[in-house]
């Protein structure tokens, strides 16, 4: 009976996830090209992996990904926590404002990317207009400048996902039992001290959970950035997923990109697993 209930789900996941994954691993050892299926298939052994590890472009795109993940998450954690802390004052109407703030994260990232290209336009765009309203930087272009483009994608990602971190932190703050503060108050601890000895440690597991989710999501990031910068200028914002898409579906180097996909799987999986262990240790404390 139990299996009857679970079987369809497991079957579908096996068919759409596991079988393709195995196929993908098999392909990663071959020279297969999906746009030239008639070409004789050759077994390459570890050749694709060797090439991949000695490829500077992949290394560069990994660096870009790491930089993007780091800065976007840092900003989101700081902003998200601050907002949650403020919202926890429970002023009148905080429920309504929470909903308003949360809207961006529910939107389609690709569509968000498209309309931010419009907001970032150097002359007609509202972003430069607002920035120059406060301090006149003259002409600048967020997505056309190799140094600013990274900040453009970090900014948009932060705009979208700060509410996510905020919601999770808010849950953490609300889970702190009041008596801890009461006890601290009785002991005469300053509010600064209360913040560091009660609030921060107790919210930390929640914050780490938020970082886990955002980390995985941003490591996979594709849609928003493709529409916003398409990896440019040059390869300044070419994240691992974008690089993979180009190899797999523009250059059609299926075998090689299958190997890259495997490396990405292993990376996410490995890092996420280590991180979850760490998270559990923090929780236990």
């Amino acid at each position, binding site marked *: 009976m139990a299996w009857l209930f679970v079987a369809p789900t497991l079957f579908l996941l096996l068919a759409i996830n596991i079988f393709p994954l195995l196929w993908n691993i098999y392909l990663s050892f071959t020279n297969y090209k999906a*746009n030239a299926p008639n070409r004789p298939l050759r077994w390459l052994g570890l050749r694709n992996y060797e090439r991949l590890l000695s490829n500077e472009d992949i290394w560069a795109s990994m660096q870009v990904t790491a930089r993007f993940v780091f800065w976007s998450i840092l900003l989101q954690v700081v902003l998200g926590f601050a907002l949650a802390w403020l919202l926890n004052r429970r002023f009148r109407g905080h429920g309504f404002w929470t909903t308003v703030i949360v809207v961006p994260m529910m939107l389609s990232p690709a569509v968000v990317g498209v309309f931010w290209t419009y907001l970032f336009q150097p002359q007609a765009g509202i972003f430069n207009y607002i920035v120059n309203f406060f301090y006149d930087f003259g002409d600048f272009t967020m*997505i056309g400048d190799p140094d600013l483009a990274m900040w453009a994608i970090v900014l948009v990602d932060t705009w979208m996902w700060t509410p996510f971190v905020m919601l999770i932190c808010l849950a953490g703050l609300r889970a702190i039992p009041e008596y801890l503060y009461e006890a601290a108050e009785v002991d005469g601890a300053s509010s600064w001290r209360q913040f560091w000895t009660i609030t921060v440690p107790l919210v930390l597991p929640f914050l780490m959970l938020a970082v886990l989710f955002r980390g995985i999501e941003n490591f996979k990031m594709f849609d928003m950035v493709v529409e916003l910068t398409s990896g440019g200028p040059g390869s300044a914002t070419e994240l691992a997923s974008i690089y993979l898409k180009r190899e797999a579906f*523009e250059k059609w180097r299926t075998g090689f990109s299958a190997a890259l996909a495997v490396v990405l799987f292993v990376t996410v999986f490995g890092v996420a697993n280590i991180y979850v262990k760490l998270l559990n240790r923090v929780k236990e404390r």
Partner: protein
Amino acid sequence: MRRTFLTSMALSMGLAAGVAQAQEKSLTLCWAAWDPANALTELSRDFTARTGIAMNFEFVPWTSFADRFLNELNSRGKLCDLMIGDSQWLGLAAENGHYVKLNDFFEKEGIDINDFLPATVYNYSTWPKGSPNYWALPAMGDALAWVYRKDWFARPELREAFRKEYGRELAPPRTWDELMEVAKFFTGREIDGKVRYGVAIYTERGSEGITMGVTSALYPWGFRYQDPEQPYRMEGFVNSPEAVEALEAYKALYECCTPPGHSDAYMVANLDAYKSGQVAMQMNWFAFFPGILKDEQVGEVSGFFVNPRQNEEASVLGGQGISVVSYSDKKDLALQYIKWFAQPEVQQKWWALGGYSAHRAVLEAPDFPESAPFAGDFLEAMSNVRDFWQEPEYAELLQAMQRRIHDYVVADKGTAKEALDKLIQDWTEIFEDAGKL
């Protein structure tokens, strides 16, 4: 809750039925979303009127054109019955059986491929190149050329200022050096109270933009893809001193004379910059020129010139042939369309509506050069066009070039020589993988 959910399910199913219910006899033609596509829609009305076959169109913007439709072909999709695909796709499409070979059909229907301009037949129809194996009928001749603001070039005060600065008359440039001067001259200049810029050139990263742009500098400088004696030997050709110079010139032009934020621009962005009066000149395909002439704002004041020479004369080839997709269920209907399209009267109307016929009856007519302000330029450009690699590995080769060139020109990484050296490495690897080296 359940009821509303079911209602919406029912509603969406109804929509699905509506979409699925198409006309009995119909064809879908796939092409890019641009001005000539509208002309083709117009032209095709005659076809529907004569045969009763309804025409559907799937037009995709150029920036996702190759991506979408190569994917469509590679996944053996049935969306398109007819495909107006890029010249460089022929190798891939022929070797993997995406297109129907048209030789027998031409013979049966008495279509003589020699009625079309040889350069277009070579580039848009044959694979292997130059062999009598035809995979498409030349549909749309095209090349890269330039548009300029005739009214600004004619202003006495500007002409005076230009003469003072450069010691010659302000005129449409004939060499890339002159182009650079004119572009510099207009950049930052205030005309009618607004700051203007010199040129809008292609800098797009995602598809083929910057490659098309930069090759229109590389070719006139004398760039060659490979050793004519030894195929696929690129060292000393792709990175020749001329190539380096041309690439540097293109970057210089980008840096000095394009409007702010012109870092990911292809056809549409150039048109925008030009039509809104931001720039004095733009590079673009001939395909857009009829539309520019009709434009409310700039129609009257636009002039045209062929890609400037430097060491030699050369233009970048655009244009496409029309092919029958072999995965289509309606190949016979699709062939009927091609048969209809190949007729001289239809080709004449095609040109009149704003399409670029490649038919000799149209192009070699004595009054052709006078039939439009850019018609003479078009013939001139088509007489020395060059194309990108047409190998089946075209997509890989193009992506490699997009990356290396954009990294150098827009993202300001490394030197021109380094960019081209890296490009040779990438290309060598691709040819090695394909077993050609």
